[in-house]
């Protein structure tokens, strides 16, 4: 123990005397550890957001999407235009036991004009049951009910409301869609914008009753999603199966749709993220590897420079293991110091990311411990070859070398 602390002492002294060399050696490890931690932190933060209910739909909603168009779940641009789902499916799902609401989500085309023309917004035709599946409250007003469909009511997403009207609270104001004036019944609170979710889509949406849409656009929009609310979360799996069975029957035996349970939605959304994370961590690991090779290189030089010292130590009774442990401790000290600096840098980067971007990376203490452990491991792995070389020197050969 005391010998080991002596080794650490020597290692630090050596690092001080070869300051530049030590800094450059540590650099590789520092960058590697910092990037691994930051990447894991970012991906963990995003995953947390996805799983932490900052999601457009509430917990007990089964999402049915059209498979033909469901190419990826990757953002707004992928909203399908041709769908395999039909209105018949909506009613079938509504009849299944355990389903308390079956809400169609139909994308309609056409310009929306209020005080201004809405750019970058979409019209979603839906039923009055949408609030029961939506995980969001209204900022003003109320959602339309099935009774007042005749008066062409509409509910606006937060951004859509800003895009259509100069007025802050546009309740009772009207806008035109396909020549028909609609009256604003309510404005939704903004959905929190998170990566990999469709929340941006809902912030820009104009929600109108599906009956009105059918009347004004008989050709129909695209039924891209059916949301089924299940009150008892224990029934989710069972109901999911029944929905699949019912739709297969409707679609003549084809399974050209997908039924996603809430847990699967999150998983689908984090799948690509996980892949990206793994890829980037792989790249960061390469940098760690290169850093390790750097340490090995420097340690080999250091051993060559200090052969005489090794000879002296052996002459006064150091065993091979003791010499080896000295150089291992030295390599590990360099790599762990590099790793600790990397961890500090990562924490700093985390802070900067939180301030500058809307990402909220979460760096847990486990990641920090893993980072420290990785840097230690690198020191041991890459320090061992130079250490073994140092230890296996014949004492007399070593002493002669000056």
């Amino acid at each position, binding site marked *: 123990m*005391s*010998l080991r602390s002596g080794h650490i002492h020597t290692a630090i002294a050596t690092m001080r005397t070869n300051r530049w060399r030590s800094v450059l050696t540590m650099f590789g490890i520092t960058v590697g550890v910092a990037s691994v931690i930051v990447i894991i932190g970012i991906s963990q933060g995003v995953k947390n957001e996805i799983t932490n209910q900052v999601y457009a739909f509430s917990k007990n909603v089964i999402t049915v999407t059209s498979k033909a168009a469901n190419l990826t779940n990757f953002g707004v641009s992928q909203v399908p235009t041709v769908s395999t789902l039909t209105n018949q499916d909506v009613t079938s799902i509504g009849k299944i036991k355990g389903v308390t609401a079956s809400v169609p989500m139909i994308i309609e085309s056409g310009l929306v004009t209020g005080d201004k023309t809405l750019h970058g917004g979409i019209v979603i035709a839906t039923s009055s049951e949408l609030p029961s599946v939506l995980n969001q409250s209204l900022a003003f007003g109320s959602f339309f009910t099935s009774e007042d469909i005749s008066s062409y009511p509409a509910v606006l997403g937060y951004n859509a409301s800003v895009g259509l009207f100069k007025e802050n609270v546009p309740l009772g104001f009207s806008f035109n869609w396909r020549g028909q004036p609609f009256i604003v019944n309510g404005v939704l609170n903004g959905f929190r914008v998170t990566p990999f979710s469709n929340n941006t889509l809902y912030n820009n949406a104009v929600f109108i009753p599906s009956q009105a849409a059918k009347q004004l656009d008989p050709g129909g929009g695209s039924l891209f999603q059916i949301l089924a609310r299940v009150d008892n979360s224990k029934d989710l799996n069972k109901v999911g199966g029944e929905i699949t069975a019912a739709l297969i029957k409707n679609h003549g035996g084809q399974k050209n749709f997908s039924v996603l349970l809430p847990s699967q939605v999150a998983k689908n959304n984090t799948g690509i993220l996980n892949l990206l994370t793994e890829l980037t961590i792989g790249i960061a690991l390469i940098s760690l590897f290169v850093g390790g090779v750097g340490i090995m290189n420097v340690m080999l030089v250091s051993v060559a420079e200090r052969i005489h010292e090794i000879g002296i130590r052996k002459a006064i*009774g150091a065993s091979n293991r003791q010499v080896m442990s000295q150089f291992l401790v030295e390599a590990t000290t360099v790599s762990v110091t590099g790793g600790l600096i990397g961890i500090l840098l990562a924490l700093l980067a985390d802070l900067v990311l939180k301030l500058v971007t809307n990402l909220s990376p979460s760096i847990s203490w486990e990641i920090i411990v893993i980072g420290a452990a990785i840097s230690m491991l690198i020191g041991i792995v890459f320090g061992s070859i130079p250490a073994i070389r140092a230890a296996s020197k014949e*004492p*007399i050969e070593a002493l002669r070398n000056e």
Partner: protein
Amino acid sequence: MSLIKLEDVSKLYGFGDATTLALDEVNLAIDKGEFVAVMGPSGCGKSTLLNIMGLLDRPTHGTYRLQNRLVDRLSQNRAAKLRRDTIGFIFQSYNLLPKLTVLENVALPLAYKGVGVTKRVKLASQILERVGMQNREYFFPNQLSGGQIQCAAIARALVNDPSIIIADEPTGNLDSAGSRLVMELLSEIHKMGNTIIFVTHNPELTKYATRVVYMHDGMIIEDETTSIGEVAKTAKRRMYSLPKKTAEDDLAGVSLLMKVVPDKTEVPSSSGQAKSKQANSTKRKRRYMKAKRQK
């Protein structure tokens, strides 16, 4: 029973044509409590002999018994352990670690033995007091004079309480005052019962020794017991008059040169054992020639 017993110990360096014979079948027995001075010209194998006795090097042939234990084929780690516990080294170039203080240097062998830090410092500082360095404990080697550094090195050699002290020209880099300091210290240690083997070029220093061994070309050519306080009788003579080459040697040298002339003159050779003996002696002569040419 001898503390150190070398039997027919030879040491060869290099391969093929470049092979040199550093020790040539040396037989030497040293008893406990002896103070042995090893003398001889440069390159005669003194250091090699000391390194083998100190377990830093291994003999190519022959056997070495230390405390009646066969040690010439010990593994590196066993040798290190034995070295740590029974042998203390003192070098001409001191060989203190420059980045450690005197105290840390002296305590280092104890650290390798596994002694705890408190005890280590205590023991080291006791030894330093014995060599008169108690107020230099926290100096670095480069802040001390040669004599002081060598005293610290002696303290380091003593700290494990070894029975044998091996000193390779301990006074080689010191002035006469420093030499005296170091030799007085060694002779005091000798009085405590340690066995000391040291190499020197200075005939004056043989007055500290109880036995003087003269070496030449890897062989012990004279082994003289002297009394402490007297310069060995043969010391001065040996130092300034190396064994002269005889006419025969010179002739052999010339015939050796003849061999490499490309006219393929065959050198007549005798048979059997005589041949091998001759080969052995010509090897030595070849080295003479080599040395001569270099001059």
